[in-house]
Structure formats: structure tokens, C-alpha cells
């Protein structure tokens, strides 16, 4: 990306003999909302801490707005950081917490009052100026932390699993609030999370971390609908991985013989050598039961289990060679356990993962 605002250039971080971030390149555009998603220990938080200046890279360079920042101490980087545990100063009132970054920048008393009021209004906590953080609920504390990280108008805001400690309802509310603030203020946000829904709903782009490297980076729809690797396919959402062998490939369509012997077609931008073993990923909600259409891949399966989820049914089916999961919409006639049925999916709804 040529208009990279934040740029990681071959950044590595090792603690002793353990390499946590491994020779990583990443560019983030100005005003972009990028989520870093991955299992714990995949290096996403360490990368964020290096951007904030709390950790120094073992090698490589980090630049923001064209300037190297990796040698700068945290207090000179001008980035707002929101922590998972809020990290509010317990000995200061809510207003003093929010005023802290302004005081550090030598703002005048009247300016501080005005901007603190504005920031607390923005997060709907105007009535809580004089409270101590401990007197607030988790969601309120996180909103104070957000106000504190935004009040000095940093260009970059870093969030380290900021919603991890909140319950589901509150988390969804805060997700909307953060998205809204991102759009209104045009902030560049780097957001670390292990919650895939959060990443999918909030981000412009998602970077999937695994073993200190980025497995895939792209728009949420690219990550979900076209995961490049098995790891990404399994990490984001649920998936069925079907093993098979390439029979032939032509015009962007691969003909694959599944391990059970059934032939299927897979849309693929790349051609594969005939005879090569491949893995085909199909999302459970992309599979239709008992409604075959033209040009669809069809598999004869037997229903082995049905799990009721309210808005949908999770149907376990067996093709004789392997079992897989189907997310079935609720219909008038529900499938029955033991029923022989046709499972179908289009060539465009499945893809090869490495």
C-alpha cells in the first residue's frame, strides 16, 4: 500500500529464545480500522505494544506518518491506548482521568474543562465527572477510558481487547459506539481482539495472526468468504474441510474427486496440477439440504444429528466417508435424524485452502 500511514517493516520481537513476532510486514492506511485477530500467543498484542512503545522490536522498523517511531518513548508517540482492564487511575476522579493527557500537554484550565466536558458528553457520562472509577460499572469505566484516549485528539488509537471484560449486550453496544466514533472522527484505529464477530463487524480490514506472522489480511468479506489457508478458514467462523484430489482444471473451475469418490466442481482463480491433494472449504450456511439446483455440487448424505439453535438448526450429516456440519434455515418441514437427503452447494461457495 503506497499511502501507508502506519508501517511495520520486517518487525521481529523475541523474548529470550521465543520469537513472538516473526519478520512481519504490515501497512495501515490513514483513517483505517484494522483488527488484529488470532489465538493467544500469536503476537497480535505484542505488535500493538510495540506500536504503543511499551515494547521495543528486536529488529525491524516501525514508522507512523513517514517517521520512524520505534526509538521514541511511549509518551512522545501521541497515540491513544485503550486497555482491556480499562487502566483508569484509581486515585483520580473521572474528570481528572480524562483531563490527564490534556494536563500533560500544558492545556489551559478553561480549555481542559471544556474538552473534558465534551469528551464525557460524547461517551454519555456527563453526570459522572466527580465519581471515582471504582464507583462505575465496567461499561462506564471503559467509556471513560475511551474518552481519555480520544480527548487529546490523537491520530492513532490502539485498543487491546477493550471489550473483552464486558457482557454480550454491553459489548455489542460499545462496538456500535466505537464504529460510530471511528467514522465521525476519522481516526486510525488498530484493534486487537480474539472475538471474530467483533472483528468482522467493526473492521475495514482484518489481519489474522498465527505464530507471529500474518496468515491473511483483507476485508472482512474476503477473510470470511475466501480464506486462503485452513487456519484462517477454521479460525474465522465454522467450516467443513473436504479432502480430495484434483482431476482437471479449466476456465477457473477445478474438478475435484473427494476422498469418498464423489466429484465436485470448485471455483478457483488459480489452476492446480491434476492429481494434487487439496482441501476444499465449505461454510455450513452455504450448504442447502434437499433443494438441488442447476450446476450444483450434490452429495448424498444421511442426517446423523440435529441441534436446535432457535433461529437455525445445526444439522450433522454423513456422506458415508466423512461427516460435516450444515447450518439449516428453519423451514416448515425439518429434516429428521436418519433421513437420506441431498446436500448441495454451488462451485462459487466453496474454495481451495492451503
Amino acid at each position, binding site marked *: 500500500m503506497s499511502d501507508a500511514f502506519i508501517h511495520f517493516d520486517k518487525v521481529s520481537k523475541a523474548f529470550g529464545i521465543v520469537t513472538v513476532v516473526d519478520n512481519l510486514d504490515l501497512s495501515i492506511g490513514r483513517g483505517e480500522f484494522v483488527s488484529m485477530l488470532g489465538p493467544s500467543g500469536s503476537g497480535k498484542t505484542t505488535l500493538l505494544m510495540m506500536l*504503543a*512503545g*511499551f515494547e521495543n522490536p528486536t529488529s525491524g522498523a516501525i514508522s507512523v506518518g513517514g517517521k520512524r517511531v520505534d526509538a521514541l*518513548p*511511549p*509518551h512522545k*508517540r*501521541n*497515540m*491513544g*491506548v485503550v*486497555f482491556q*482492564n480499562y*487502566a*483508569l*487511575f*484509581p*486515585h483520580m476522579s473521572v474528570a481528572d482521568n480524562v483531563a*490527564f*493527557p490534556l494536563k*500533560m*500537554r500544558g492545556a489551559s484550565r478553561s480549555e481542559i474543562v471544556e474538552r473534558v466536558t465534551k469528551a464525557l458528553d460524547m461517551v454519555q457520562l456527563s453526570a459522572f465527572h466527580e465519581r471515582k472509577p*471504582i464507583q462505575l460499572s465496567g461499561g462506564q469505566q471503559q467509556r471513560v477510558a475511551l474518552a*481519555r*484516549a480520544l480527548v*487529546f485528539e490523537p491520530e492513532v488509537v*490502539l485498543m487491546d481487547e477493550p471489550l473483552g471484560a464486558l457482557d454480550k449486550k454491553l459489548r455489542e453496544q460499545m462496538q456500535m459506539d466505537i464504529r460510530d466514533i471511528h467514522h465521525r472522527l476519522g481516526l486510525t484505529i488498530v484493534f486487537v481482539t480474539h472475538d471474530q464477530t467483533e472483528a468482522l463487524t467493526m473492521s475495514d480490514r482484518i489481519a489474522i495472526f498465527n505464530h507471529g506472522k500474518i496468515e491473511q489480511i483483507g476485508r472482512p468479506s474476503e477473510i470470511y468468504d475466501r480464506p486462503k489457508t485452513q487456519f484462517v478458514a477454521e479460525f474465522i467462523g465454522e467450516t467443513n474441510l473436504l479432502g480430495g484430489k484434483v482431476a482437471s482444471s479449466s476456465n477457473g473451475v477445478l474438478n475435484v474427486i473427494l476422498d469418498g469418490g464423489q466429484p465436485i466442481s470448485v471455483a478457483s482463480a488459480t489452476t492446480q496440477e491434476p492429481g494434487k491433494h487439496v482441501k476444499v472449504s465449505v461454510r455450513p450456511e452455504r450448504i442447502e439440504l434437499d433443494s438441488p439446483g442447476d450446476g450444483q455440487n450434490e452429495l448424498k448424505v444421511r442426517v446423523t444429528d440435529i441441534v436446535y439453535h432457535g433461529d437455525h438448526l445445526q444439522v450433522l450429516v454423513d456422506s458415508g466417508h466423512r461427516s460435516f456440519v450444515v447450518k439449516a434455515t428453519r423451514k416448515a418441514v425439518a429434516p429428521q435424524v436418519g433421513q437420506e437427503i441431498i446436500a448441495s452447494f454451488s462451485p462459487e461457495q466453496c474454495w481451495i485452502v492451503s
Partner: protein
Amino acid sequence: MKTLPVSKAVFGTAVVIFLMAPLFAILPLAFTDSIFLNYPIPGFSFRWFHELFTANAWRWSILNSLVIGCGTTILATVLGTIAALGLRGNSASLFFSFFRTAFLLPMVVPAVVLGVGMQLMFAQYGLANTYVGVIIAHTVIAIPFVVVNVTAALQGIDRRLENAAASLGASPAVVLQQVTLPLAMPGIVSGAVFAFATSLDEVVLTLFVAGPNQRTVARQMFSTIRENISPAIAAAAFLFIVGTVVIAGLVLLAQKKTQRA
């Protein structure tokens, strides 16, 4: 199992009596009107408290104890806090564990040994028989209490608070002054109180390094009981105990504050 609480209560009470009996033995004598330090007490009087605050030797010793105690408290608290800050983190490194142990050594080294060493060294540097000398001597044995208390308080501080402050634009010095020290304050106060208490009842080092001008209350009690057994000792002891109770209360208060933070 039912009998266990009873035996516990009996044993507990016995231990408390064993520990407290000397105190209860000396305290009533502070209010005697006799000139002898023994029972029975003929009548009630405040004459020995009066003596304490009017007799020159006692008045000076109280003043000395306060001056040396305050000096020790300030010096030990400042040095101990700096040490605790320096020893924070890096628990695995040999260098740090060496210093951590070194700072606690004065707690276990016999005071007589320290006293002999100090007397020799202080004479060399002209510190023998001076207030500064006594304050330094007391500071040496008071520092471990400050280090222990401040270290415990620092361990309770979430590093992310300091990181947050730094990210909001606070330089390391400002982080220390605005976040770390205020949050560690209960531990620093406890340490200071312990330092003062240590200085107040220290006798051994004082015997070695103090001259006649630096006679503290503890030292004065020690010589009084040998020279002329006067109930003024009991009065001084009474003041000591009242002071200790007040100090213990302060520590409890400070610790309660830590728990709430």
C-alpha cells in the same frame, strides 16, 4: 472436633497473657505516687509523668528521640522507597536477587555486630557521638521495613496504569510522581511508620554510636533502670505503648487504604 475450638481459645488466651503480662505489670506503676518501682501502689498520681516532662535528662531524651526518629524516618523512607523502585521487576536476575537480599540483611544481622562496626567506622569519619551518626545507624536497620512495605505496595500496582499514563503523554518522571508514588503511598506511609517505631525503641546501636548528647528515651530508660530504679521508667513505658498503639492504628489505616485502591 467440637473440643478443638475450646482448646484453641484456652491456648490462644494463654499465649496472649504470656505476651502481654510484662506490659500489664509495668503500666500501673506509671501512676504510682511512691518513689519506688514496685507493688503495692500506695496511691494514684501523675507525678512521674510530670517528672518525665520536667527533669532535664528525660526532657532531653524525649526531644532526642523525636529528632532522631524524624531524621531516621525521612532518610529511611526516601532511601528505602528508591531501593524498592529500583528492585521492581526483573525478579529472575541474579543481580537483583542479590540486592533484594542485601537490603533485608540488617533485619537478621545481630545489632551488636552492626554496632561494633559502626562505632569503628563512625570514629574514622567524625560521626561518632553526633546526631547524624545516630540517624545513619538507625536508618540502616529501618530501611528493610520501608523496602518490604513499599515493595509490597508496588507489586499491587498494575503496570498497565503506568503504561496508560505514558501513552497519554506523561514522561517517566511524571508517571512516577502522578501515578506510581500516589498509588504506592499507603505502603510508603506504613514503611515510614515502621521506620519511626524502629528508631524509637532502638537501644543497642544507640549504646554504641551515641554520645551523652544523643541520649534517646530508650537509652535513658536503659540507664535509669540500672542507676536509680525510678517509676519514671514506667511512665515512659506507658507513653511508648500509647505511641505504639497509635502507630499500629496508622499502619492498619494505611493498609486498609491499600486494599481499597
